[in-house]
């Protein structure tokens, strides 16, 4: 255990635990979009920046990546932190003006309109890579990734085409902090709309009640992973004994 100071409060924390978690354990809120407990920290959104001082030197660090250490003094609401948090929010909002999540955040920070020119195209992706990280680290499918570089960087499937590795589970849509991915089940089809590609998947029909209850590819994936018999999912959960 180490002792550190956050916003003037002395707190105890496990050594190596990241500042964002330590702060949240102590009910100190730091906004963050690209952080999720189920995947490794990545430091993409830059919203969780905090100011630390060690040996009289102050600097800004991403709290989702910076580990707690003995004697560290952390500020989560200093003028410098608020300034950079506002600027980051403005940049993100200028990129995705239609994102309700970013609009809310901007409102909380008192931003009426970003000073940067607004991007057009009605996408809500902030390139935080939560979807691609979850797809790789949680689902184990690696069906999507970030492609290109610089201003052309985007979340994409290989060649912007149907991704053969996708099991249609919808984890990407579920985990996306800005709801940039839409997922809809229409009849026997699941439609996943990503910023740069739309994919359709067949849903499995229950052999008893006839309802379409899960994507065929996802069920095949589970059968493969868990070594279940091929007919393990012929019936939907409601019709199983």
């Amino acid at each position, binding site marked *: 255990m180490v002792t550190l100071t956050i916003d003037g409060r002395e707190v105890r924390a496990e050594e190596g635990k990241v500042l964002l978690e330590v702060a949240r354990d102590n009910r100190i809120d730091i906004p963050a979009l690209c952080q999720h407990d189920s995947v490794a920290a990545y430091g993409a959104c830059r919203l969780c920046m905090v100011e630390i001082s060690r040996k009289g030197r102050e600097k800004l660090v991403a709290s989702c990546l910076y580990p707690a250490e003995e004697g560290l003094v952390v500020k989560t609401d200093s003028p410098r932190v608020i300034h950079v948090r506002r600027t980051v929010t403005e940049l993100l909002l200028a990129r995705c003006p239609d994102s309700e999540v970013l609009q809310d955040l901007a409102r909380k920070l008192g931003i009426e309109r970003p000073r940067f020119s607004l991007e057009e195209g009605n996408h809500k992706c902030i390139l935080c890579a939560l979807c*691609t990280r979850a797809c*790789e680290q949680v689902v184990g499918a*690696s*069906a*999507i*990734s*970030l*492609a*290109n*570089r610089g201003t052309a960087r985007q979340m*994409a*499937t*290989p*060649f912007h085409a149907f*991704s*053969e*590795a996708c099991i249609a589970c919808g984890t990407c849509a579920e985990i996306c902090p800005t709801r940039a991915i839409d997922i809809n089940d229409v009849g026997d089809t699941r439609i996943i709309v990503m910023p740069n590609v739309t994919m359709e998947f067949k849903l499995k029909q229950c052999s008893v009640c006839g309802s379409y209850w899960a994507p065929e590819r996802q069920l095949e994936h589970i059968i493969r992973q868990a070594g279940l018999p091929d007919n393990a999912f012929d019936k939907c959960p409601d019709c199983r004994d």
Partner: protein
Amino acid sequence: MSEQATRISEKVSAILDKYRHEEGMLVSILQDIQAEYNHLPKDALVEVSRRLGIPLTQVYSVATFFKAFSLTPRGRHSIHVCLGTACHVRGAVRVLDEVERELGIKAGETTADLKYTLERVNCVGACALGPIVIVDDQFSGEMTIDKVKPMLTSYD
């Protein structure tokens, strides 16, 4: 598998053998494929992913990250027009305009007959000779609009 896909598969297999199927050599592997085909064919990337046992998304991310790689076929000859400061002040923009007009393409594009790929670069370190145009490995210094057409017709 089509005949072309089979050929690509064999070629990729040989390149992977050279790098002992090491995942960490992905960039070198892609460089070799690009040297062979002048671009990265989709079938080759799929093959690399399959044989190395790494996700296609990973291969695609790397292939699109580096500017040296191209997913679309490139011309037999590459033209680089330098637009660095020294070349710029000596009229490189007009030279580029002339090349674009002669070839009917913009910088970054390839002619329909796959003869030329045109690109702009920012300084090649030969500022005293500007404006510079590089075709393949051939440097042409002190370029003028008049010299563009003769230069282009000297290649086949």
